[in-house]
């Protein structure tokens, strides 16, 4: 059985490495004719650009049906959501130049810098011009020169994102590597590993060590990216995935003692025992940096430095102004225990209706005035009737990456010892049950045997 698992794992790894090594059949043609943007690709891959415009990576939104208090007919995502990891969205924080700070310095900022367009064709735009604006190479080239991708003002004074459209970059096409994906994913949330707190370095993650990359697990078809049910990653391309699928079954262990747990405990709970990154931010207080700009004050930890919080999750999401996190219970028959990274953020709420308000970061970045940021965002959104009051929001992020080596996965005593990682009471177990669940009888013989084998 474990031989079979090893074979499957090896299969996945081989799939990864052979695909990377293959040379792109279009290379000769591109070297000969040069690269004129997506239309060059479309001579051999017709329809790809139009197809891309319909995905989350272009729209930063989709219809969402598993989250409370949303209109199921409207689209939601980074385009228009408001939460306190980043207190705004693409609309209020549209890419722009901030007003000069006290030192007279200015810079470009905006959420939609993480969009593979040129800003003239922005998040969710459609039509032939948008099709030709897509930066295919940011995901597909292994020779992308990032000094060529930056916000600048064009001759009409509009802010545009430039791209590397060199023949050199276009001649080196393939499946996206971890690096291609991490261009945007690493710094989501305001800096490297801030939001997710996971590392995809070779020595940090068991799959990556074996050569498995993002798109081996996220098996993208027609630019639709499968995703999971992170309570704070709403937008999706209509395809869901979990750890169980092509590579793993729901009973993957040779040891039945582990398999008996998989109906009630998600794989991630035992296999991703740590998390990290920012755990709290205060958007009402911006700190002055040595360069004269301000940043929201942030408490953060290193990758793998924090313990997750465990909760029952039935894959539907509670969404109120002060809480966005998992719904579920021990008894609903659908929930499992998952690990979460809990984050708490302070921002302004509208006293008139209790809703969380968003902030345009341009004013506070240059002078620290967070209320000016709220006023600017309210103006952009056409909100007139408001009274900002500071308050806290708690949000739960899924902890779905950086699988730890198997000898560090949680084992019996990590949970069943009296001071184990699970708070059985909080999870809904009665005193009598807890007594049983924390009795060494459950694991003593087994761990003793393992200890003897080790000595």
């Amino acid at each position: 059985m474990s031989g079979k698992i090893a074979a499957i794992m090896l299969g996945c790894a081989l799939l990864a490495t052979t695909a990377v090594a293959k040379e792109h059949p279009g290379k000769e043609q591109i070297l000969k004719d040069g690269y004129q943007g997506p239309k060059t690709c479309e001579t051999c891959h017709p329809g790809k650009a139009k197809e891309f415009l319909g995905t989350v990576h272009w729209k930063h939104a989709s219809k969402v049906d598993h989250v409370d208090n949303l209109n199921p007919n409207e689209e939601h995502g980074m385009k228009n959501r408001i939460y306190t990891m980043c207190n705004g969205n693409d609309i209020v924080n549209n890419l722009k130049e901030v007003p000069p700070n006290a030192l007279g310095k200015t810079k470009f900022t905006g959420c939609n810098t993480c969009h593979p367009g040129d800003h003239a064709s922005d998040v969710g735009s459609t039509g032939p011009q948008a099709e030709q604006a897509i930066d295919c190479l940011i995901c597909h080239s292994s020779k992308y020169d990032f000094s060529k991708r930056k916000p600048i003002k064009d001759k009409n004074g509009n802010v545009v994102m430039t791209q590397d459209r060199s023949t050199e970059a276009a001649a080196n096409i393939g499946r996206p590597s971890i690096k291609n994906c991490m261009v945007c994913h690493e710094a989501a949330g305001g800096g490297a590993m801030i939001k997710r707190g996971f590392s995809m370095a070779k020595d940090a993650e068991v799959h990556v060590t074996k050569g498995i990359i993002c798109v081996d697990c996220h098996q993208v078809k027609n630019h639709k990216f499968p995703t999971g049910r992170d309570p704070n990653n709403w937008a999706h391309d209509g395809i869901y995935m979990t750890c169980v699928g092509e590579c793993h079954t729901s009973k993957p262990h040779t040891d039945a003692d582990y398999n008996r747990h998989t109906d009630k405990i998600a794989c991630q709970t035992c296999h991703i025992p740590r998390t990290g990154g920012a755990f709290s931010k205060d958007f009402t207080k911006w700190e002055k940096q040595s360069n004269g700009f301000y940043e929201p004050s942030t408490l953060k930890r290193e990758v793998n430095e924090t313990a997750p919080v465990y909760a029952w999750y039935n894959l539907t999401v509670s969404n109120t102004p002060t809480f966005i996190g998992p719904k579920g219970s021990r008894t609903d028959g659908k929930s499992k225990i998952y690990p979460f990274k809990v984050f708490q953020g302070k921002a302004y709420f509208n006293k008139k209706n209790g809703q969380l308000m968003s902030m345009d970061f341009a004013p506070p970045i240059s002078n620290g005035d967070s209320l000016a940021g709220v006023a600017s965002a309210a103006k952009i959104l056409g909100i007139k009737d408001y009274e900002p009051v500071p308050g806290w929001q708690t949000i739960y992020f899924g902890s779905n990456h950086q699988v730890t080596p198997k000898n560090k996965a949680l084992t019996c005593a990590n949970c069943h010892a009296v001071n184990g990682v699970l708070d059985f009471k909080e999870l809904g177990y009665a005193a009598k049950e807890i007594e049983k669940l924390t009795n060494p009888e459950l694991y003593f013989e087994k761990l003793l045997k393992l200890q003897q084998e080790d000595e």
Partner: protein
Amino acid sequence: MKKISSVIIVFAIMLAASLTVISTASAETIKITGVISKIEIAADQKSAIAVIKDNKSGESISITIADELTLDKLKDKRILEGDEIRTKFEKEGDKNTSKMFKKTAGC
């Protein structure tokens, strides 16, 4: 013969490793933010030296970068001369070795 020399190399590496362990104990960790005025990637591509102008003191400091992830960002120009970065490095005699090297970013 080949085998012997590789054993010697391994021994040398171990020796070097143990020496670094001893000396890091006395090394000092410093954090600065500043603009990169120069990036030089070593001929063997295995390390780079970046010169940073510290925002606070105005002093220019040379920092050696050897971790793969940051090196990669220097090579494909995700981090450029003129960019402002935040770094944590270990000072040991004349040599400053980067422990963290990131672009500054708001949210």
